[in-house]
Structures are given as structure tokens and as C-alpha cells.
């Protein structure tokens, strides 16, 4: 467990280091975008706890709780979290921070187009985007694990944009709940 924490901390530090460089790759743009969010996120966390009141374990099973929403969707070949989904992640971050014994699996998925292993990479980057957002809003790294299923586990079977848009997603799976 210590090792995993250490690795995760290393990952976060590595990411921070990445942000400080002024690389012009696509990934850096994503990172820079996230970084600006961190600044806002500091404030969002404190006000966030207020905003989401007391999210308890019971809230997990409450269909009216903001925690009921556990899937966020992505644009084609993108791992950028959409503006409207940041709200959803903020609720989950507040809940996880308040309940440090709870663990979440962040599962990244893609649509069926393109190469399977590339899609594993893309699903991983989607899951990592979400992980970073949760961590920068105070969730302990040890509470989060990520996995990418790429295009292997579609939510909707289908071969057009209506199915694809539902399959480009990250699912938050609470372990044991």
C-alpha cells in the first residue's frame, strides 16, 4: 500500500513537473488546462464541501444525490473533461475527501473506431484526467485506482455516433458499494 501511495505521489509530482515545462504537445495543453483548474479547485474544494453538504455513504445509493451521476463522456480522440462534467467530479471529490475509507475505480473507455491498443491508451488518458481532477480536489491518491478497457467494454452495442458517444466515457465505480 505504501508503495502504491509512493508511486501515485510520484506520478502526481511527475505531472506537476510536466506542467511547469512549456511543451506544445497536445497532452501539455490538457495538463495546462487542468492546472488552471487546480487554482480554482483549491477554492472549489472548500466551498465545494459546503455546496455538497454532507455527502455520506448513504448518498451513494440516493438517486437524487449528485453522486448518482457516475459516468462522464468525451469527444472523439480526446481526454479533456468537459466543463459541465467538472461539477460532477467536484461532488465525487468532496464525497471521497470526506470519506477517506471509500475507494473508487476510475474506468476509461473509448468507442470502437481505430486500433484496440491505441484505444487502451486513450481510455487510460481519460481515466488519468479524471484521477488528476479528483486528486487536486483533495482525494488521497490511495483512494483511486484507474483501469482502461479501451473499446473492449462498450456501454451500448452499436456502430454509429449515437452508440459511440455513449461509449467514449469514464465510469466511477465505488468498490464495495
Amino acid at each position, binding site marked *: 500500500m505504501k508503495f502504491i501511495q509512493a508511486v501515485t505521489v510520484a506520478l502526481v509530482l511527475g505531472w506537476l513537473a510536466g506542467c511547469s515545462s512549456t511543451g506544445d504537445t497536445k497532452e501539455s495543453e490538457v495538463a495546462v488546462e487542468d492546472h488552471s483548474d487546480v487554482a480554482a479547485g483549491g477554492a472549489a474544494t472548500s466551498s465545494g464541501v459546503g455546496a455538497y453538504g454532507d455527502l455520506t455513504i448513504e448518498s451513494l445509493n440516493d438517486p437524487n444525490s449528485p453522486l448518482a451521476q457516475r459516468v462522464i463522456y468525451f469527444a472523439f480522440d480526446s481526454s479533456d473533461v468537459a466543463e459541465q462534467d467538472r461539477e460532477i467530479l467536484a461532488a465525487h471529490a468532496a464525497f471521497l475527501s470526506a470519506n477517506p475509507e471509500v475507494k473508487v475505480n476510475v474506468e476509461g473507455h473509448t468507442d470502437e473506431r*481505430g*486500433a*484496440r*491498443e491505441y484505444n487502451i*491508451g486513450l481510455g487510460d488518458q481519460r481515466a488519468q484526467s479524471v484521477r488528476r481532477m479528483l486528486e487536486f480536489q483533495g482525494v488521497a491518491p490511495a483512494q483511486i485506482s484507474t*483501469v482502461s478497457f479501451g473499446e473492449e467494454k462498450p456501454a451500448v452495442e452499436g456502430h454509429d455516433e449515437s452508440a459511440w458517444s455513449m461509449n467514449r466515457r469514464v465510469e466511477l465505480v465505488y468498490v464495495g458499494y
Partner: protein
Amino acid sequence: MNIYYRSLLVLLLCLPGWLQAALTIEITQGIEGAVPIAVVPFGTAANSPAPPEDVAAIIASDLARSGRFAPLAEQDLIARPVEVSQVRFQDWRTLGVENLVIGKIATVGANQYRIEFRLFDVFRGRQITGHSLPATADQLRYVAHRISDIIYEKLTGHPGAFATRIAYVVSETRNGKKSYQLQLADSDGYNPQTLLTSAQPLMSPAWSPDGRRLAYVSFEKRRAAVFIQDVFTGKRQEIAAFAGINGAPAWSPDGRTMAVTLSRDGNPEIYSMRLSDRKLKRLTFSAAIDTEPVWTPDGKTIVFTSDRGGSPQLYRMPAQGGRAQRITFEGNYNTSADISPDGKTLVMVHGEDGRYQIASLNLENNRLRILSDGRLDESPSFAPNGSMIIYATESGHSGVLAAVSSDGRFRQRFSLRKGNVREPVWSPFTKRK
């Protein structure tokens, strides 16, 4: 255009129970100019039971699938010689047949056969080659493929790849439950065998250079891990199960090193793993997705997919790591490289205008050529003689396998009777017991 379409359905005549999952082969596009050849049904002794396989039909089907030969239909055979003395070359010349194959199968013991065949040049009236091969009943199909290899090599000057196998992944949904299988079949789709069944996804099979082992990715623990499995004994070992991605295994040509994609450092990167002690070396250092490594046949270079330039494209780098050079520039999506055995051609999934097709890139003149005509084609894999490329395509919203000649002029589809078939990988040349 000398390309015409025909739809010759090579049907399995009888399907015993264990063959239920066998593939049927449909030739979807052929070429004029395939060499006419006659393969006469092999003779058997009048007083012994017929062997369980029609060896001549297997050979004819192999030769047809290569796209290089056009075997006469059985009803068009004007004579059925079994012995050399029965061959009248004049008969075959009038049909325009360039080559003739005859043979016989002798029963030499319980379940033991001896197959003798001869290949003739009809116009010169001469035997080109002749062999006698032993086989048990179980080996008859394999020996038929060996004979096809000999004929193909004698007539084209290139080794045949009929006595090889393909590995692939099948998924099916039964009672709402998904099941994934790693399967192995002969190069014509017969004799499918299941190596592994899992309720969670299986991916990315890769042959060891000696054809004895397969590496693959399994999500059986709800997270990715790379395994190596012995094809003959079924024994397997987990070689990579780090946090995050464990994917895209690729054996070095000497079989000692495995290139893999791991995200244990926070981002998908390519590593090489020395298999003797599993020592890892990180080869890529970009913030982008780096994955799908493949080795050039000389083992000196690794070609891989990266979106470091904004869209997924193919790059090459030294096998020990180092500066990467972009290879593909046409199209906004180029992934899943495989390299021909002579190292001169690369095949890939080429995406343009929302279509994903198999394309080849001539590495000497950089000419790109579209080889397939699907909408979501993927996973191209060269035959070990470089003559064909097998890939996954969709047919009626189900995944099927297809093969195309490396010049793109001849295409065929293999249809499994049920389930989604994908990620085919053609075995290297192998010797079987």
C-alpha cells in the same frame, strides 16, 4: 481493369460437431490471370475405407485462396488419373491447364496413411516434383497443407504458408453474459482450438518467433496483465501486471525481449522487457500515447503508434530507445503497424474521412496503397511468407476475418458461424509433430 468480382463460396461439405465453429471462406475479389491448375482427387485402394479428409480438395482450396492459382472445378476434370501412366497431357493442354497434380493415399496401418503426389508441367509433359508423406488421420489436413506449400514454392519460387496457423480473439454473448476466447486455427480456418476462455476481455495475441508461445493481454482480474502461454502444453505465466496499462506485447525477432506498453509511470509508454529476468527499460518519453510496438525483422528498430504530433501516426526508433522519426504523413489516423518478413513493406490501419482501412506503405518509395474496402478494418498481420495480410473487418455488424494479397488484388473473407472474430495474427513458419 482486370479486377472482377466473383463470389465463390467454398462451403464446408459436412460439419461434424467439433467443427461447428469452423470458418467458411468466401472469395470476395479475385484477379484474372490466376494460373489454371488441375488437382485430381487422390486415388485410394478399392478395398480400404476412404480416408477422413479429401486431400486434393484441401490442396485446391489452398491454391485458390492464394489468389495465384485457379483450380479447375471438380466437375470440369476431364480425366481422373491416379498413376503417371494414366496421364494424357494432351487432354489437359486443350483445357488450357498449365499444371496438374495427381496422387494417391494408401492405408498402411490402423489410422496410418501414406500420401504420394506428383506435380506436372502440362505443356512440357514433365514431372516437376513428387513426394511421399506419412500421416495419421489427425494429420491429414496438415499434410495436405504441406503439399500445397511444396506446390506453391515449386511454381512461384516463394515458400508457401499454408501449413501455418492463425490466432485470434472471439467474443460472444450468451444469456446476456459476454465470453471471450483466445483461439487458434489452421491457416484455412479449420481445426479451431480454444486456448483460453474468460468472462473479461482478451486482447492483442502475439506469436513468439518459434511459433510455440503466444503473448496476450487478459483482463481476467478486471485489470490488464500480459501473459505468455505455451500453445502446446497450455501452461502460462503472467509477465506484466503493473498499475495501469499492461498491453501491446511484441516479441523481438530473437525471442529474448518483449516490447510492451505500460502506464505505470502515469502515461502510456513503450518499454522493453528482457524475458530472462524481466528487467524493464523504458523506451519512450512523451506525454502522448505511445503504443503498439512492432520490431523490424533485423531487430534493430521498433515501429510504434504515437499521437505526439496531434493525431495517431506511426514512428520508428532504435530498439534500445532514442530519437523517434515519423513515418506516416497521409491521413489523420495511422495505427497498428505490421512489417513484412523482408522488412520492405509496412501495413497499418489507415483512417481517413471516417473510414478505417488496411493500407500498405512501401518503405523504399513511401507509396501508400489502400488494400481493404471495409469501414472499420483493423489488426493487419502478414503471413510469414509476406504473400497475404490477414485482418479483421465487419460483416453484418459482426466481426469477421479477411485476407488480402499483399498487392491488394485478391481478397477473401473468413466467416465464423457465430461470435465476433478479431485481432488475427498469422503464425511464423512452424514445424509440427
